[in-house]
């Protein structure tokens, strides 16, 4: 099974990525696409800035993808993670999983997102509407708990 993993500053098209993964693949019976968006935090936020660790980001996401592929019978997998400045409403991350049946596709997508949030080397900082640079976003305990349930 070949993965597509991309780390990029540019926006991506979730529908086009999903179509590319499933095109001509009649054995696929289920495809799940999760897109994480930048929200405006009640109108406070002008943008998120995502810093990443080039080289390790690709390597770590590859290891997470390998784990998913060893746990679920996936027929296709695409992960795209953006870095740089991202405005509210824009997409940040995409996970597309394909399998014969829905359960594997759903579970693998959920697993991948839990691991991406806590293990992939990306850090978010807020830029506020009043022009100030806000704080680095704190890691959430809920995200650590979410990853624990897969262990």
């Amino acid at each position, binding site marked *: 099974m070949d993965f597509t993993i991309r780390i990029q500053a540019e926006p991506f098209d979730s529908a086009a990525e999903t179509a590319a993964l499933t095109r001509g693949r009649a054995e696929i019976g289920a495809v799940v696409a999760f897109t*994480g968006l930048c929200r405006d935090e009640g109108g406070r936020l002008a943008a998120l800035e*995502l*810093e*990443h*660790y080039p*080289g*390790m980001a690709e*390597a*770590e996401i590859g290891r997470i993808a390998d784990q998913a592929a060893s746990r679920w019978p996936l027929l296709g997998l695409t992960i795209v*993670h953006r870095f740089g400045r991202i405005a509210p409403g824009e997409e*940040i*991350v995409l996970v597309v999983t394909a399998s014969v049946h829905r359960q594997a596709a759903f579970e693998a997508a959920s697993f991948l*997102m839990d691991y*991406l*949030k*806590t*293990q*992939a*080397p*990306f*850090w*978010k*900082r807020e830029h506020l509407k009043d022009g100030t640079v806000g704080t*680095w*976003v*704190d*890691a959430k305990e809920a995200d650590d708990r979410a990853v624990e349930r897969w262990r």
Partner: protein
Amino acid sequence: MKLVYFAWVRERVGRTDEQVVLPDGIATVADLVRWLKGRGEEYAYAFENEGVVRAAIDHVHVKPEARIEGAREIAFFPPMTGG
């Protein structure tokens, strides 16, 4: 050995990366952190809360007790907030 820093660890240390020559007796990541904290107040500030700052050796997450012998690049960074 190359050290690299990210996010608020980078800001507190005041640099993105540096080459260091380590004295004898620095065997683990925890030893390295202890040595860095003695180099100046910016390092002491970056590593003030033991256990918060994460480390990676050659692009792989490691724990404080990991041995650093043979490492090309060691990274320090806050808990991750991607996705």
